[in-house]
């Protein structure tokens, strides 16, 4: 299984029947491909829609029906449309059950940095700050290390924050980590790895319980 599939499949296990879910752009979007059988969730798109359906067949795209990344989508039965202020009332007001977002950095205090590298990348925060601040549960989907092999799971973020202390769960290609009041807890490791592998690859201090589960089995 490739890293992205490993991460998105594991996150899909966190969804409950009936949840209202907002998926960020990129890797988080792939969570939608792995919803467990019997679980029905409703996807929100922050540009003003609940009930997002899959991409349309080629040739049947609608210029007025896009997601927050600008990609064409479809509407499912029961879909609704609303303006951007209502959309962010839904987000900020605590009505979204789960949001899944990517990370440049995430730390053991639940801080997330995912919108800016000063001097290099300044795309803007879009809806990310509101989502991380307001969603009932914030899950970060990220590769454990960057392309240089450096841990993205830090003691303390160094890049500008998206929100302070709002992350609940971090799912990487190596581990499932829960942000608890007493520290960052190693809940599960990917099949084939040892606890030592994960500790060695992680900058953050980890709380390792007696029982650590596995994920990534088919």
């Amino acid at each position, binding site marked *: 299984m490739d890293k992205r599939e490993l991460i998105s499949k594991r996150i899909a296990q966190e969804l409950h029947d009936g949840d209202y879910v907002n998926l960020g752009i990129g890797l988080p979007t792939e969570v939608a491909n792995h919803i467990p059988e019997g679980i029905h969730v409703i996807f929100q*798109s*922050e*540009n*003003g*829609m609940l009930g997002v359906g899959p991409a349309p067949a080629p040739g049947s795209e*609608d*210029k*007025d*029906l*896009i*997601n*927050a*990344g*600008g990609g064409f989508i479809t*509407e499912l039965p029961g879909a609704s*449309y*609303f*303006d*951007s*202020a209502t*959309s*962010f*009332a839904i*987000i*900020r007001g605590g009505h979204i059950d789960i949001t899944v977002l990517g990370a440049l950095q995430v730390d053991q205090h639940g*801080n997330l940095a995912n919108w800016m590298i000063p001097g290099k990348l*300044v*795309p*803007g*925060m*879009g*809806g*990310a*700050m*509101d989502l991380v*601040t*307001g969603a009932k549960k914030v899950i970060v989907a990220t590769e454990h290390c960057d392309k240089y092999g450096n841990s993205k799971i830090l003691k303390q973020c160094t890049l*500008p*924050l*998206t*929100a*302070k*202390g709002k992350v609940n769960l971090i799912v990487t290609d190596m581990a499932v980590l829960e942000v608890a009041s007493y520290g960052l807890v190693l809940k599960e490791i990917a099949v084939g790895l040892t606890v030592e592998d994960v500790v060695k690859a992680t900058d953050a201090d980890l709380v390792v319980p007696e029982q650590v589960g596995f994920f990534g089995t088919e």
Partner: protein
Amino acid sequence: MVKIISASEAAALIKSGDRLLIGGFLAAGAPETIIDALAASNIRDLHVVCIASDWENKGIGKLVVNHQISSAQVSHMGTNKEIQAQFNKGEISIELIPQGTLMERVRAAGAGLGGILTPTGLGTVVEEGKDVIVVDNQPYLLEKAIHGDFALIKAWKADKLGNLVYRKTARNSNPIMAMAGKIVIAEAEEIVEVGELDPESIVTPGIFVNYLVQSGE
């Protein structure tokens, strides 16, 4: 009363230096016909308030490429390399605003409020220089209202009183921007007679709208 005008007449109402609230999200629901007329004009030094700077050849991006915008309040510009280049060269000044905060600041202006209190941005660079106000032991940022000289918006259908109906995700910021412009110019794909729109379906009441422009003309 609402007046139906051409896109170039709409552009002629706007002066260099004006503050424009422009509707749309990644060009879906953008008032492209009015933007094209602005792009063909000599109007410069615009201050633009919008969700995103769209693409170089679509939506607000066309005004960026023409160097007609000197400052912007925007939540996302990741799809537009040109605005990032102008920003890095210091040619355009940018205030990046969380999208939900941006919408509430504009809505506040239209609703006669001085601003809003939001938890979004606490503990981040967005907090810098702003007042933190504690209500019932919860901290919030005081975010001030954002007004516009003009709101340029796009609807699906309009009646001749300026009542507006939107279509799917092309609604986005348009009803919010419509509330906060001193003068509101709405472009519509179809302009119908008074009475033809179901009053229950109207999202923006005509009281907010001053001018109508037929899309594509």
